[in-house]
């Protein structure tokens, strides 16, 4: 367990390092010299000595690898820079916008699980039943629905034609209803499908079949025999869909003018506020990598015996 955790941790660091390299490369491919870009805003770019002074201050007169190292050590010390636009620290800007985004993601997760756990497991246990076929057909359609279009239709239905809910801004619980609903509907189709296939797969495990042959009560058989085995793939599913939920949250924030990180990032792209883009992407990427790492560890933490046994019955 510990050895796996450590070796997987090196992979995590390597991925993160590659990502910083990627961002650094992009920064240098960006059209325009950052110093000139910044100084242009102050109208000082024409003065060569000022440019040179700034270049020296930010280490831009050094070689690329040296610049990368300089930049990286800065990052490691937590220097994410300040926004061109507001002059405030990027960390602070992000922190103040974290809550709406996280609430949006968390509630979407909750609603998605609420819809998909009963349906996914139910259709898996009653494979080939009518409910199962209808759900499958719907999921093919559901996987093709553009999230943004669904959101617009929901807006149209519940905001315009039948004005029940606000379609813009945030602040009250009611503002969350439509975005959460849109994300959950789209994600549920995927979750139902995955949960169904886990159920079908683990239902065929020899030990579940044997437990059935012993006439175990359903109330014991399903929760503590079947679902226990499905815990690992379930956790993996939940953990690995965080990026999808995050992406969906960005879209929703922009449609519903929600003041979260996603909207902030897109706004700053349009204003070409490089430190913000850089800071946001590094933080979000780090969060995602870390979450993936933790999900992978769950594989061992939950119960390795189930996985070992699975390898055996599959061969």
């Amino acid at each position, binding site marked *: 367990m510990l050895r796996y955790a450590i070796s997987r941790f090196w*992979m995590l660091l*390597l*991925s993160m390092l*590659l*990502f910083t390299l*990627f*961002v650094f490369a*992009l*920064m240098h*491919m*960006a*059209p325009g010299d950052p110093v000139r870009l910044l100084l242009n805003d102050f109208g000082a770019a024409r003065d060569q000595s000022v440019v040179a002074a700034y270049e020296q201050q930010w280490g831009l007169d050094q070689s690329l690898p040296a610049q990368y190292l300089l930049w990286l050590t800065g990052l490691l010390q937590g220097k994410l820079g300040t926004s061109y636009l507001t002059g405030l620290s990027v960390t602070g800007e992000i922190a103040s916008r974290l809550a709406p985004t996280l609430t949006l993601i968390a509630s979407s997760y909750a609603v998605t699980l609420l819809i998909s756990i009963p349906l996914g497991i139910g259709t898996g246990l009653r494979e080939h039943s*009518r409910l199962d*076929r*209808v759900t*499958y*057909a719907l999921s*093919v*359609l559901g*996987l*093709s*629905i*553009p*999230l*943004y*279009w669904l959101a*617009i*239709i929901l*807006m*149209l239905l519940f*905001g*315009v034609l039948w004005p029940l809910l606000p*379609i813009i801004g945030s602040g009250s619980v009611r503002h969350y209803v439509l975005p959460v609903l849109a994300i959950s509907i789209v994600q549920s189709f995927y979750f139902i499908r995955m949960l169904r*296939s886990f159920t079908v797969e683990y239902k065929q495990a020899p030990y579940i079949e044997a437990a059935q042959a012993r006439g175990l009560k359903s109330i014991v058989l399903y929760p503590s025999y079947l679902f226990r085995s499905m815990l690992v793939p379930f956790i993996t599913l939940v953990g690995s869909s965080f*990026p*999808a939920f*995050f*992406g969906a949250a*960005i*879209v929703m924030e*922009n*449609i519903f003018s929600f003041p979260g990180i996603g909207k902030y*990032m*897109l706004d*700053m*792209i*349009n204003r*070409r506020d*490089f430190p913000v*883009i*850089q800071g*946001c*992407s590094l933080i*979000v*990427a780090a969060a*995602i*990598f870390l979450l*993936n790492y933790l999900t992978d560890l769950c594989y061992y933490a939950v119960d390795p015996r189930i996985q070992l046994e699975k390898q055996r019955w599959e061969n």
Partner: protein
Amino acid sequence: MKLRFATNTTVMAALLFIAALIVCGLLGSWFQPFDPYETDYSAKLRPPGAAHWFGTDYLGRDLFSRVLAGIVHSVFPVFIILAVVSVISVVTGMISGYYGSRLDMLLMSATDMFTALPNLLLTIVIIGFLGVGMENVYLAISLSWWAKYVRLIRGLVHDVKKEPFVLAARVSGSYGLSTMMRHILPNIMPQVLTMIILDVSRIILTLSGMSFLGIGAQPPSPEWGAMLLDGKNYIQLAPWLGFFPGLMIFLTACAFQICGEKLRSRYKLK
């Protein structure tokens, strides 16, 4: 009562739809009743009707013509992206899967990085530094799909490598490249193709999604996502603007998804 989805009639309908889409895309202007870019202020925001089947937008442009013109911007790039990406990833995936070693390890952490990040974040990073535009969206999508395919193909190669016929070929003196071309590639091809078809709908959704967020195609491009963005802003005045382009995205994605599902059940792919 039969409710199996991938029945032959549905698959036929999906294929017909795709064929019609391609024809309309290639012979675009023949089918378009109006010029998709021509503005007509006298016919602003007309609801769908006999003259304008899908209505007109705030500049009086015919939405139906624009939707047809959008095929070239929303669907065709997907084919090109997939063609390029799959060739590159088949090559890298096969090399990585066949030879293993340190290169493999580095490649895997690189692909790990790209697959872990949501498409949207990757696109935001790329667009954020390189500027708004469709080419950068293509680049971002290619990078994340390349990574996904390399991982999948590498896994497939690993499995096929252990098959007796491959071992036999290697024992009898067949070298890396010829083994790969003659024994490994043909055996992973059906799975790879299924995978690609299944992904068409997802890439269509992603591509239009980027334009919808305003970081892909820019007005006046009739890209479906960009048109939806206009529609969103006119949701109270002209709801049809937000409906038809989205419907097209949905139907197109659906058609490809149905074909993909059919292939998936045929090749027993997970």
